[in-house]
């Protein structure tokens, strides 16, 4: 090994910020204790006033977008949040939370365990960023042409495809319902055409795709996609985990040795 500079450790004296900055939240210090806030403002709005005047969905949107939503926007966001509120008891994220529950893991850990899996790249939030970028790029093209090209080349379409070998009916139903709302935008409507064009091939909307379309139309950043997907699916994941937390460990299947095969 060369001895010269590699082992002489010298600080770079980089300039770091004096204080952490934020555009989201202002905590107003109290008169006699600078550590205690007397009021909090989210993007300029007093949180007490938001509590009295605005819905949870309004403030959720405000946190990420910086402005309060218009009625059509909050309507479609809220309906999306309900569509995604529970990935269902068969989703790996929910099953992980159920495992934590039945295993008597500290309930504080049910959410982070489930949320981590909800950030995965298969049928989960890990797809959302790519799907949002795909929709933004493709939504001015002919959907049928796009579908045919992907089918022909067998390349995956972010946010669309087959689930368990066929069309995910729930995802398609939710998308169609959302597309009827006044707040439905270009990405969602284009996705409807794409899913229609894929139908005969046993493909269509996947839930992360539906989320991507609505979030894209609402102007959320693609990078926020995975986090929003985790947040929106978290309630169901946690509910299922907690449901099993009081049951004996035998209340879930444990695969017998006869059904366990090592293939090498």
């Amino acid at each position, binding site marked *: 090994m*060369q001895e*010269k*500079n*590699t*082992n*002489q*450790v*010298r600080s*770079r004296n*980089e300039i770091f*910020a*004096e*204080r*952490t*900055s*934020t*555009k989201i*939240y*202002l905590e*107003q*210090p109290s008169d006699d204790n600078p*550590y*205690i*806030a007397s009021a909090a*403002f989210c*993007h*300029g*709005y007093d949180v007490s*006033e*938001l509590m009295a*005047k605005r819905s949870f969905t309004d403030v959720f949107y405000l946190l990420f977008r*910086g*402005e*309060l*939503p*218009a*009625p*059509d926007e909050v309507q479609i966001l809220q309906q999306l949040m309900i569509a995604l509120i529970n990935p269902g008891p068969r989703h790996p994220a929910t099953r992980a939370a159920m495992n934590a529950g039945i295993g008597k893991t*500290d309930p*504080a850990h049910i959410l*982070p365990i489930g949320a981590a899996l909800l950030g995965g790249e298969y049928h989960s939030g890990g797809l959302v960023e790519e799907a949002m970028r795909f929709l933004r790029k493709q939504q001015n093209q002919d959907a049928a042409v796009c579908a045919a090209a992907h089918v022909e080349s067998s390349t995956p379409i972010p946010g669309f495809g*087959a689930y*368990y*070998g*066929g*069309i995910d*009916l729930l995802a398609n*139903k939710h998308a169609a319902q959302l*597309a009827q709302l006044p707040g439905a935008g270009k990405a969602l409507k284009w996705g409807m*055409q794409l899913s*229609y064009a894929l139908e*005969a*091939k046993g*493909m269509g909307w996947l839930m992360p795709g539906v989320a991507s379309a609505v979030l894209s139309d609402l102007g959320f950043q693609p990078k926020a996609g995975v986090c929003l997907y985790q947040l929106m699916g978290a309630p169901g994941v946690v509910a299922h985990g907690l449901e099993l937390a009081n049951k004996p460990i035998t209340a879930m*299947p444990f695969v017998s040795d006869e*059904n*366990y*095969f*090592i*293939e090498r």
Partner: protein
Amino acid sequence: MGMSEKTFSDQHIIDTLNARRGKIISKTGGWFPGKGVFSHGYSMMDDLVGKKSYFQIVVLNATGKMISTEFAHWIEVGYSCLSWPDPRIWCNQIGALAGGARTSAIAATAMGVLATDSRTYGVYPLKEGVQFIQTALASHQQGLSAEQIVANVPSRGGKPLIVGYIRPIAKGDERIRAMASIAEGYGFPVGPHLELAMAIEGVLQEKYDEGMNVNGYVSAVMADHGFSPDEVYQIFTTLVASGVTACYLDTYHQAPDTFLPLRCDDIDYQGVAVRPIPDFQPTNQRELAMQKIALVTGGNSGIGYATAKLLKARGYAVTISGRNAQRVAEAANELGVDAVVADMANPADVARLASHFQGKALNALVNNAGIARFIPMQFCSAADFDEVMNTNVRGPLDLIKGLLPALEKAKGSITNVSSAVVNNGLANAVLYAASKGALEAATKSLAIELAPVNVRVNAVSPGAIDTPIITKFGLDEQTIAAAKAHMETQIPLRRYGKAEEVAEIIAAQLESSYTTGAIWAVDGGVNVT
């Protein structure tokens, strides 16, 4: 868009899934009570536990490969090098903060480990580090010199940007020395990746006074040992765990809030200034253009006020009208809406009110303004008759006539506010009941007449609602109280309604795109008694 209930599924996939229900098929191993534990072809308890080191087993589980005791020791030294108890390192700081928050040690350690799945530091960049040196070696073997390789990478701040070289925060990396001395001690040969890495470092030292960092060194050695980028990442997943645990415990045993305490003003707020909450704020021109427009007559009090407030909250741009200039102005100010002073009994006022919407699209008209006169029949004068009929019938119909172009333009909706008195009868309310009856009759005919132009016309029929109109009947307080108490016994729901409850129905009726010519009761059940 046709929405089929068919899934067009691939039967082969369903069959495959069915064959695997309730079964585990592992390509790695498992535990068979009484028979043993198997891992990658080894019997764990016979071949591995106590015979192989922990890091040999870690690498086996991460890659399926069994490495030598010596190389496992070198990897262990790598883990040691990343087990610093310094909470300024980002993953470690998560541990320290977790100690302050009094999480469990496992939560703290696991979350600190999670943080190293980062594009800039920790474990994830090892993937890129291995990728870089493997690609660089391939180019090198095709004739590219270390100098040319450095020249070909993108640069930042005038220096080449290569994962594994040019350490952040500090120049030089003492961890390389520690690991290299182990490698030298065991006599590991310097492979082609490490040789090239050192040549690259030589270029960087000469040209930029920069060197390799631990990532670059580990990546090169791992590549020389035949590991892929993914395998290296998998081997080092919990690299920082122990340092995080140390940082967690440090703060866990100190008073809460004392780790880097922050005053409110230690956070530099750079967002928008404090502002009041709008009931509705269009965020851009498109939304402004989409904003629906509503006119509520008699919007300064009672049902009209509640309706104006609700419509505003639902995103309408609302205008209210009323007879009393001061009260209308006050209400408009409270509600944050536009106001026009207009007496519905005065045709000039009605025309002026309608002219406010000339050339515009009006989505919603609520004909709420009205007067009530409780006069026994024998005392009803022609003036009383005119006043009630002009205000409650002619005015609203004139207004509709004047607003027809604006309503047609928006395919708007009209809600006339009638009264339960129409169907139930009430002594001394003849003029009022007759006027509201006329309005209901007009509602149904107008609904038919305006359906072809997509303007819907409906009415609501409120019962006893707690609004100021009750005090305007010309009765004394005692009589009002007695009448109110008696009235409540006649209402199936046993109470007066609230203006807000009527407003909800009006708003719903305005939005009900398939309802026209309907009279909706909002009367606590009075209409069925």
